[in-house]
């Protein structure tokens, strides 16, 4: 990680190289401001790590970018779509993995990936390529996901994102429940995704790991960006 960069709002939100532009974004949950004015610009094709303590707003930023939340104040443009206006055109371009994987236990790994691929009309070639990219072996393809380990399930879920050719991957605590080897493997897969052109945003409590892998680190405290670091 190189030089620290002060947080400055970027007004160039029409630029096509920006995957995410948040300007003074406020999201209120009940009476509690989960985001209290976030300014953030994420370039396309970068691997971004959101860091911060519990309640800092990491999950809220990811859900805002997924179109699951709308800003109460400020602006949020994701892939040049105004989330406050209508997030619908955005959704099939974005893949969001929360704390769960969105898998069906009684379907096999292949059937799960095929199902998610079919939601955007992707074909069998996309599925096979995604399974290969996520290092899902022939032995695992036909196993029901209820019999897979946490790391294997995560890889199947990621294969679903890859098969859908999502432009923006939003991953909330993707390392949770994985052993060291599986975390390393996941990091390699996320890096490969970003290198292939996807924008990857993830949240994590594992500061050292995030520092080592991301292009753009974002520290959140009390619903605001406190520091940004770019490679």
């Amino acid at each position, binding site marked *: 990680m190189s030089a620290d960069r002060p947080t400055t709002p970027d007004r160039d939100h029409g630029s096509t190289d920006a995957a995410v532009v948040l300007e003074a974004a406020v999201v209120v949950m009940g009476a509690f401001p989960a985001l209290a004015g976030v300014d953030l610009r994420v370039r396309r094709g970068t691997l971004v790590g959101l860091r911060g303590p519990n309640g800092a707003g990491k999950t809220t930023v990811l859900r805002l970018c997924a179109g699951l939340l709308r800003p109460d104040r400020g602006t949020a443009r994701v892939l040049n779509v105004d989330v406050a206006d209508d997030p619908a055109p955005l*959704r*099939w371009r974005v893949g*969001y993995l929360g704390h769960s994987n*969105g898998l069906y236990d*009684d379907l096999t790994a292949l059937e799960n990936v095929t199902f998610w691929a*079919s*939601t*955007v*009309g992707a074909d069998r070639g996309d599925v096979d390529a995604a399974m290969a990219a996520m290092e899902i072996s022939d032995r695992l393809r036909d196993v029901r996901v209820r019999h897979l380990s946490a790391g294997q399930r995560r890889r199947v879920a990621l294969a679903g994102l890859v098969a859908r050719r999502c432009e923006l991957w939003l991953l909330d605590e993707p390392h949770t429940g994985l052993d060291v080897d599986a975390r390393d493997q996941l990091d390699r897969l996320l890096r490969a995704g970003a290198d292939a052109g996807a924008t990857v945003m993830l949240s994590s409590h594992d500061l050292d790991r995030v520092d080592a892998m991301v292009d753009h680190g974002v520290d959140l405290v009390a619903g605001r960006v406190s520091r940004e670091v770019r490679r």
Partner: protein
Amino acid sequence: MSTPPGVVATARMIAARDLRIEWRARVVMNQVIPFAAVTMVLFAFAVDDTGALGRLAPGLVWLTVMFSLLLCAQRAFAIESADGALEALRVAGVDPVGIFLGKAAALAVQLLALAVVMVLAALILYDLDPPAGGVVLLVTSAICATCALAATGTIYAGLAAGVSGRETLLPLLVVPVVSPVLIGATRAVEAALGTGGTAVADGWPWVGLLAVVAVASAVVGALTFGSAIRD
């Protein structure tokens, strides 16, 4: 770039997936049908009067199907919420009308299979012999009633899916709403079996009522399901 499937293709995809999961898990086969069959048998022991059983059989069949609807509808959304798949479907921008129609169709197939077993059980256990013209009425009313039950059950199970205490909330919501279906189906089957002192022709107006309820439920579900599953 691939394009998302339309409503019909989405519905087909969702229905096929739900039926595949049910085929694998065998919840209807191994749990719901035995539950319904035991209810029929116990009722036969409790009312030890063949004449009375014959008169009560149509109501009992549909009461059993209605209780089974609650189990099946809960199950249909439990597979979506177990690993966050429903939220993933929303993020992926999968058409909620397609989701509704697909889940309702899969539920209708399961309920129809259950209704067939229950009617056959009633014919055997309660010593009933439908007139020749009654079979067509029996089949038509069963199709219309199961479609109406499935559409209504899908709406309310989707609504209750994100609510704590959904297991007890769903019966409270569904049972009053499906009472016209229960009454219509019971009257139609009484006419088909000749147990209510009515002719077969008297059953067709009730089939008309069931068809209207089925269509109305499907339209209401298609219009409201997106909002129902939003939070």
